[in-house]
């Protein structure tokens, strides 16, 4: 079809037929063709801009939720608690403890003391206790950033009328306290510390397990594997695994690491005495699950990096009498390393943001202490975000936004490292 008019057209020009025929072929639709081209060019550009808009909207939403006014009500004003010239922050732990004893029921006081004696608590912990147990601040209502800025004065009036005795403060939900305090059921006091540590622990295991195994597998497939059926199966299999949804890995982790390998993953095999029974739902299980999840990606990326090493390097090495492993270790790997690391870091950043497999493996929803070793219960930053997002109160949405900022900053740092590595070392190759 398409070939015919072109030949005709050419033929027309050769035989010098009437101008009308020529015009019939060319001119009438030329302007409309160009117009259509221009319209579509705009459409193409517009759809690209949609992506940019989506990203901007996402960032704006998160910022909007992480800052803003909050109306805070205290059951007991903290100023009235401190009798002397010292404020609560300046008091020592024993002073705070006696203050606590005066203001709460003896049962509750004994309970707190049995959790951890006051002599072992830091001043900061004691202070937090007094605030949570006695002053009991509560965010009765919160407003997002843009709304807060726009209706500042109206808000002040509104709060005065609706919540007498409460305080309207402009709050940055992301703060030093937010990073350093433990989980709490009160959004004003809840912090991300447990989750940050949990994430770091899990990622450490992912790195320890997935990096060596992934790079070794890539070396095998690129340098050693011959054209046998088993190697072809391995290669196809890795490509398929890369497309398996992450939640399936979570199910595998639940059935295998958590259940079948429970003695190993809960640490009882090693005689680890864990105060709380995690039943295999430990940092170790989570790390191994995520390691399996990113393994195919690491392998594929490393393979590409190894493939990019020119074969002249290998041949020169063999020519000097080096063995296969010597060639790989001293020549191929050092040259492929920047590429391998870039790919590996990018896949680690993927593991960092994974939520679904960890929910399935059994992340704890509420733990208030630091993870001690790899056999502890865990929670991670994305898990916390998920938890807080599914709560109905306004303030949880604010701290979810703050947690997202921290997560994104950490991810950005990881990715920037990868990009730096790539630009720094890529010039040296070849």
């Amino acid at each position, binding site marked *: 079809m398409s070939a015919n008019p072109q030949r005709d057209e050419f033929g027309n020009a050769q035989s010098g037929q009437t101008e009308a025929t020529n015009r019939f072929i060319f001119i009438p639709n030329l302007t409309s*063709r160009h117009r259509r081209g221009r319209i579509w060019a705009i459409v*193409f550009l517009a759809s690209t801009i949609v992506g940019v808009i*989506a990203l901007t909207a996402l960032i704006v939403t998160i910022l909007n939720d992480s800052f803003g006014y909050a109306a805070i009500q205290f059951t007991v004003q903290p100023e009235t608690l401190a009798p002397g010239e010292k404020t609560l922050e300046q008091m020592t732990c024993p002073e705070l403890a006696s203050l606590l004893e005066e203001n709460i029921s003896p049962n509750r006081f004994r309970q707190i003391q049995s959790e951890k004696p006051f002599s072992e608590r830091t001043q900061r912990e004691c202070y937090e206790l007094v605030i949570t147990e006695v002053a009991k601040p509560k965010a009765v209502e919160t407003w997002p950033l843009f709304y807060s800025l726009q209706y500042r004065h109206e808000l002040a009036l509104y709060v005065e009328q609706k919540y007498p005795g409460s305080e309207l403060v402009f709050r940055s939900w992301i703060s030093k306290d937010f990073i350093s305090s433990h989980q709490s059921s009160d959004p004003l006091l809840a912090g991300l510390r447990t989750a940050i540590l949990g994430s770091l622990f899990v990622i450490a295991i992912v790195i320890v397990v997935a990096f060596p195994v992934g790079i070794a597998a890539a070396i095998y497939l690129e340098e*050693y*594997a011959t054209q046998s059926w088993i190697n072809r*199966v391995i290669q196809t299999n890795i490509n398929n695994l890369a497309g398996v949804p992450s939640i399936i890995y979570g199910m*595998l982790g639940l059935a295998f690491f958590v259940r079948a390998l429970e003695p190993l993953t809960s640490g009882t095999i090693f005689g680890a005495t864990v105060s709380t029974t995690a039943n295999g739902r430990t940092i170790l299980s989570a790390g191994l699950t995520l390691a399996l999840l990113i393994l195919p990606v690491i*392998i594929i990326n490393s393979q590409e990096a190894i493939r990019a090493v020119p074969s002249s390097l290998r041949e020169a090495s063999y020519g000097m009498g080096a063995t*296969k492993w010597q060639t790989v270790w001293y020549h191929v790997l050092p040259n492929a390393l920047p590429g391998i690391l870039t790919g590996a870091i990018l896949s680690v950043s993927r593991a960092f943001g994974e939520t679904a497999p960890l929910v399935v493996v059994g992340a704890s929803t509420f733990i208030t202490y630091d993870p001690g070793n790899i056999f502890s219960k865990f929670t991670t930053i*994305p898990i916390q975000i998920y938890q807080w997002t599914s709560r109905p109160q306004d303030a949880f949405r604010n701290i979810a936004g703050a947690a997202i900022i921290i997560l994104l900053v950490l991810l950005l740092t990881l990715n920037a490292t990868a990009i730096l590595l790539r630009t720094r070392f890529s010039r040296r190759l070849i």
Partner: protein
Amino acid sequence: MANEVKIVPLMPEVSTESAKPQNLRKHPRIIESIIQAFLFICGAISIFTTIGIIVYLGEEALGFFTSSEVSLFEFFTGTVWQPQIGNFGILPLLNATLMTTGIAMLVALPLGMCVAIYLSEYASPKMRSFLKPILEVIAGIPTVVLGFFALYTMTPLLRALIGKEIVQVYNTASAGLVMGILILPLISSMTEDALSAVPRSLREGAYGLGATRLEVATQVVVPAALSGITAAIILGFSRAVGEAMIVAIAAGAGPNLTWNPFRPAETMTGHIVRISGGDLSYDSIDYNSLFAIALMLFLITLLLNLVSQRIIKRFREVYE
């Protein structure tokens, strides 16, 4: 000092000790073999992973199907999923999955194509170097963050546009739309790769025949890259089917067989996340039913991935 320079013979052993050259072939290199074996095992771990997935998913799913409470027929045709009263019909979950995926594809497919064509055929190098990283950033955002975005930005937006009575707080439309944003970079970058792989000579030939830029893009380059584009679309679809957190956060809890995208409905992945997030006792029918859903999910995505790979291999046009 200068007098003490030693003269080192180049090959002392050979020249002094033995006249016979060593036969290197007879040297068994044990360490080399051990290393190779270790590397092979590392490669084989991927096979164990697959076997593990199939065995564990299959085993628990088998326990589900052989239990007295459910039959295979009921599983595939039942329209109610309520484990509490022993109703295990996967259709509501499957329906919700297809709906969110469908909406996502409605967004991502046209946008992804347009973005890819723009980046590959229209954009100046400067524009490209600005836009590509942005798309990559979107692809790298954790899905739980996108879930937050769906629930707190997309849903209020839909409710403001369409009406609060029609659009409920949890709905498949907003989850699907945001999922579309998620797979947009995936589809566009794979499509763009396919488009850039089309040799310049084809484009220049078409320009030489008087085609406009649009005609070159849509009638020459896109058809030539069709296999790659199809594979990209299928992969995007498979990714959307397996996506969990966006739907878990924004699409609502509770299986619900509905065609209305503004009503809540729970997808397969969303159901797994919600149930396994709660207290789950092993060997209960609930626990086993999750594995049956997961097996189904695994088979669907595996099939899609295999088809995509097959298309790339089979229909790829090879140009010199």
